[in-house]
């Protein structure tokens, strides 16, 4: 395998977690719910997946329980932002804090435990031998799943009535309501999907990417996923491309280390890149105000303006 193909393969596997989390957040935000709890849901997902896989020996159970735990946490956020219409920013931050706390509480005995079974690399015959492109076909199952999921979620969002309903609810809930679309149900479903995918993203880190558990292993990737949501203009396809950029920076960080650059300074690269990319993006975007769902972060109540 040549250097470039190997780099791309690493880049893709470094970006799957961010992609999964961003896909979920795109749906939540398209429906108008801003969930800043991604980091916390990922942390819990990572821990639960690791714990469940370790104790049952079954990765599928690990992944499922991570998704369910993410959904449960997002349900709290849904209740606060949709049903009682409180402050979504604070609720999301609280969820992140709580998730990080829960993850370190549950995971305190998992540190250093090796995982016997983790998601292995699958090589698709023939395709994986093509230079450069082959990198896409030499990945673990969850990464393959993320390609398919991106396509499905894109199709649903832009080509079906379910997608129209979601976008309506996020852009103009009043209009959606008067058409007979249940604003609350749509928002709850999207928020739960966001939670499930954030949990799965965390699971990817602990049972596929590393595979091990350390405290704080999400290391801000949930926040980067939030930035990616904005970066992708709330479009799953752009999120796929964007996530590779962010993944590439992560890999670059390790590749530059042998050159004698300080590891703590290199560790700031993904965060710096996130800020810079948002800034560069907005130089163009500010002019046309593309993208953001009009009612993002605003609760809906029928008898109020």
């Amino acid at each position, binding site marked *: 395998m040549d250097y470039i193909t190997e780099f791309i393969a690493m880049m893709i596997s470094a970006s799957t977690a961010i992609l999964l989390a961003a896909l979920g957040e795109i749906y939540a935000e398209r429906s108008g719910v801003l969930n800043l709890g991604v980091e916390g849901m990922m942390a819990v997902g990572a821990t639960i997946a690791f714990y469940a896989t370790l104790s049952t020996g079954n990765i599928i159970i690990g992944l499922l329980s991570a998704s369910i735990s993410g959904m449960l946490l997002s349900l709290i956020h849904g209740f606060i932002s949709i049903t009682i219409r*409180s402050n979504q920013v604070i609720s999301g931050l609280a969820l992140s804090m709580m998730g990080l706390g829960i993850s*370190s509480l549950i995971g305190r005995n998992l540190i250093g435990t090796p995982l016997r079974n983790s998601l292995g690399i699958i090589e698709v015959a023939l395709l994986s031998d093509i230079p450069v492109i082959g990198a896409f076909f030499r990945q673990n199952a969850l990464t393959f799943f993320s390609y398919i999921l991106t396509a499905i979620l894109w199709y649903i969002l832009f080509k079906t009535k379910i997608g129209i309903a979601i976008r309506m609810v996020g852009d103009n809930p009043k209009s959606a309501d008067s058409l007979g679309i249940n604003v609350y149900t749509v928002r709850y479903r999207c928020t739960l999907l966001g939670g499930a995918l954030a949990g799965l993203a965390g699971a990817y880190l602990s049972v596929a990417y590393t595979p091990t558990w350390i405290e704080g292993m999400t290391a801000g990737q949930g926040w980067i996923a939030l930035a990616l949501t904005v970066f992708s203009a709330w479009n799953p396809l752009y999120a796929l491309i964007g996530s590779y950029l962010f993944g590439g920076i992560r890999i670059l960080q390790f590749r530059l280390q042998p050159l004698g650059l300080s590891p703590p300074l290199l560790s700031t690269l993904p965060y710096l890149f996130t800020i810079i990319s948002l800034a560069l993006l907005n130089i163009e975007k500010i002019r046309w105000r593309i993208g953001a769902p009009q009612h993002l972060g605003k609760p809906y109540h029928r008898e109020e303006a």
Partner: protein
Amino acid sequence: MKVKMIHGLKIERREEPGLPARILLKVLAVILSFLFSAILFAISGIDPWYAYTLIFVRSFTYSGLAEITTKLIPILLCTVGLIVAFKAGIWNIGAEGQLLLGAVGATWIALFVDVYDPLRLPLALLVGMIFGASWALIPIILKVRLNVNEIVSTLMMNYVASGIVDYLVYGPWKGAREWGFPYTDKFPDTVWLPLIPGTRIHWPTLIFGVFSSIMVYMLFSKTVLGFEMKVCGQGRKIADYLGMPYGSRLMIAMVISGGLVGLAGVGEVCGVHRRLRYASSISSGYGYTAIIGAWLSGLNPLGSIPSAFLLAFLLTGRDIIQVSLGLPFATSNIFNGCILLSMLVVEALGRYRVRWGRWTI
């Protein structure tokens, strides 16, 4: 169409609750989060009763209270700082990073700048504030000029700040006498903040914290600048409509915010540690804790003092059970999250009245 009528609890809106009711609701929220955390503790095999008793018994001793007061100082300064930002409509989640930069600024003056010794401490305080303010200024300039969401950028800058501190203490600023620990050398005593004897309470900073909460209260209730910041916090379009200088008011708010938070960083290195250490030991999440503080005080600067006390008590409690029960440091985040969540729920409940009535389905 199917018609059902049942009797049950009916929820109705009511007018805004008054101040006593609001305070009562917050107390209720804190109690709720104690209960909820207790459940989580119990699930993970820790006796919550034992843990809570331990916290209360150890906290309300002389040394316990001294420790609470020591922790109260950075939380108070950060809380007041964040209130300024939040009132101006800026979601400054970056207090953690601004605090670290304040500490870096003070360290630079303490160890690496040649100044007349009596001036060293005042200069360290000033430069720490400037560093904190400058760090806060970057995301707000990005917001004003390029519409970059400040929640994401301030958060990202926390990670960058902690990378910078770690770089410094592992690299160029690593102390010659520290045998491989990631610490700088100990500061000369000319930059030490005076302490209340027998404690680690650096009282000048404490006094400044209380003073700043009163000043910020005055700023927003009496002055032109405060009024303008509050209005600009409602959005750029409104500021433009009224002909107010949106960018400059937001920047001023963020400079005040970052400056106060930076001062908290100076207090930590010049009052408590007396050296710069790796990032996570300089600030044990004060910046994030202050978000709770600001919300708990209902964005009223005067409310920041009791809020900071409560949070300092909780952080002290965290240290106690961390040592006694061997719980990881981050576990206290559960409690932090719980307070915020129950506050949101309880506040929302306060907006409604529940009564018995007829439902039609």
